[in-house]
């Protein structure tokens, strides 16, 4: 799994998700992205948190739109108009529009999620262009230090608690903060020393090209952006239209080519294996 190919796929997915306001295409992007996530995520990664966050975001979108926009013919509840923003008819159309927006958010987020749930955290840093290789190494080492700092923070907190430390007043926080910061600093100096001992410094560097471009990677990197470009093109030409539930509720228009572009985004789930 080439990180750059996956990044290209993510960008394509986000583009398609946001390029049209049509819930059909967005739903297809959601399905493709979920497939990619489930097929390729790292072994111990749970998707539950992501799912909950998206459900909450969708509910917020539906609720806010329904309460604030009072357009549409099919009202299911009428609040007294005297209430400032919320007063008025709560309509089915507004709810559907909110749901469509929520779907758009979900599609974009799910298209971007594999970048953190499929790849190792530093792999994306490694996918930076050669010129930024040293920056990538620096960021990578910083990312490596974070779990250690978090663990030492828990350890220090426990140990200080056993000595009778209770975080009652702000004045007492230094008893936790200072040791954690000092430990982090000492750890980073130690790591810097190790890096220098391995020859890290100014001067010429080569790059270990373990980023291989296999057939599957090339396929993904070719198909996904092509689908995105085609989709945007169809949008500009007008073949793919937005969908609005007002002024009247209608079935969203579905164009075959648009659907084909969206389905093409399922390529990573089909050609890549974990």
């Amino acid at each position, binding site marked *: 799994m080439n990180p750059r190919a996956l990044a290209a796929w993510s960008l394509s997915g986000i583009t398609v998700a946001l390029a049209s*306001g049509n819930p*059909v295409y967005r*739903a*297809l992007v959601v*399905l*493709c992205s*979920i*497939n990619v996530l*489930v097929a390729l995520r790292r*072994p111990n990664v749970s998707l539950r948190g992501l799912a909950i*966050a998206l459900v*909450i*975001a*969708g509910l*917020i*979108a539906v609720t*806010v*739109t329904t309460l*604030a*926009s*009072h*357009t*549409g*013919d099919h*009202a299911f509840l*009428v609040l007294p*108009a005297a209430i400032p*923003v919320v007063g*008025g*008819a709560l309509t089915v159309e507004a709810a559907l*529009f*909110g749901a469509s*927006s*929520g779907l*758009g*958010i979900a599609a974009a987020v799910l298209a971007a999620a594999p970048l953190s749930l499929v790849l190792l955290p530093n792999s994306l840093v490694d996918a930076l262009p050669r010129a930024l290789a040293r920056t990538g190494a620096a960021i990578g080492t910083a990312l490596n230090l974070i779990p250690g700092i*978090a663990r030492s*923070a*828990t350890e220090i*907190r426990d140990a200080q608690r056993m000595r009778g430390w209770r975080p009652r007043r702000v004045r007492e926080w230094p008893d936790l903060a200072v040791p954690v910061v000092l430990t982090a600093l000492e750890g980073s100096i130690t790591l810097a020393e190790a890096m220098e001992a391995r020859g890290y410094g100014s001067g010429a560097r080569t790059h270990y090209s373990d980023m291989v471009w296999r057939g599957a990677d090339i396929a993904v990197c070719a198909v996904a952006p092509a689908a995105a470009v085609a989709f945007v093109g169809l*949008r500009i030409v*007008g073949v793919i*239209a*937005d969908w*609005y539930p*007002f*002024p*009247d509720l*209608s*079935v969203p*228009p*579905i164009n*075959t080519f*648009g*659907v*084909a572009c*969206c*389905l093409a985004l*399922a390529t990573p*789930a089909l050609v890549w294996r974990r």
Partner: protein
Amino acid sequence: MIRPLIRVMLAMPVLATGIGAASSIARVGPAAPACARAASVHHAGLLVEHGDGQVIRRCVGFGTPTVTALALLQASGLEVGTSSYGGVLGTAVCQIDNEPAAYPPGCFTASGSYWVLFVSRAGGAWVNSDLGASSVTLAAGDDIGFRYDSQTGADPPPPPPAGTCPVATPPPARTQTPAVRAASAPRATSQTQATPPSPAATPPPTATPTGGVLGLATPAASAASVGSSPRPGAPPGISPGLLLAAVGAGGLIGLLSVRTLRRPRA
């Protein structure tokens, strides 16, 4: 203690994004401007109150960023009689929808009624216009009102303009439609645009059913179309797109369920 704190801090951007995105898309307030993604076709509301109280509402579209009240009136399809004062003084509106039946060349009689011009900016309250109809410029979301008023007594404004042009009518993404165009047969979808869509807005006394927005335009008169959308109308049977989408979605869901069932790990 630390871990829940970190979780909350990470959840905040997600929630903020959700709220921000949602609220940017949601309409807040009854008079919010049209959808941010409106295509090039603009709309303004036209309200004409006859001397006997009869009210005509039209939602008129135009293609340029701004339009004069006179041009809007002329594009609305109503009968308009004007008299030009020439040069800087512009043109005055003497007759709308055949009222008054006749007027002098100077347009205004000494003590009779005349068409009073009101302007509502971006859904606000009516304001007496201090410019003539040919000088007042309107942008999308504004409303223009003409009230046939006798020169005696109070000078009340016409009924509120809310709902003349539906608040959330983002026109479909279409290519530019010129402000003045011969309209073809009324499109099914544009029909409802002139009727006040939200029952929540104070129901104005629409005595005149306005039927078809501008679809009634006679071929000769200049009528603006409101970005009629070439929606396929009634889809005849099952479109291939729908079929492909259904098959694709089914396949993806099937793939998903197979993968989830095959992954029994902790």
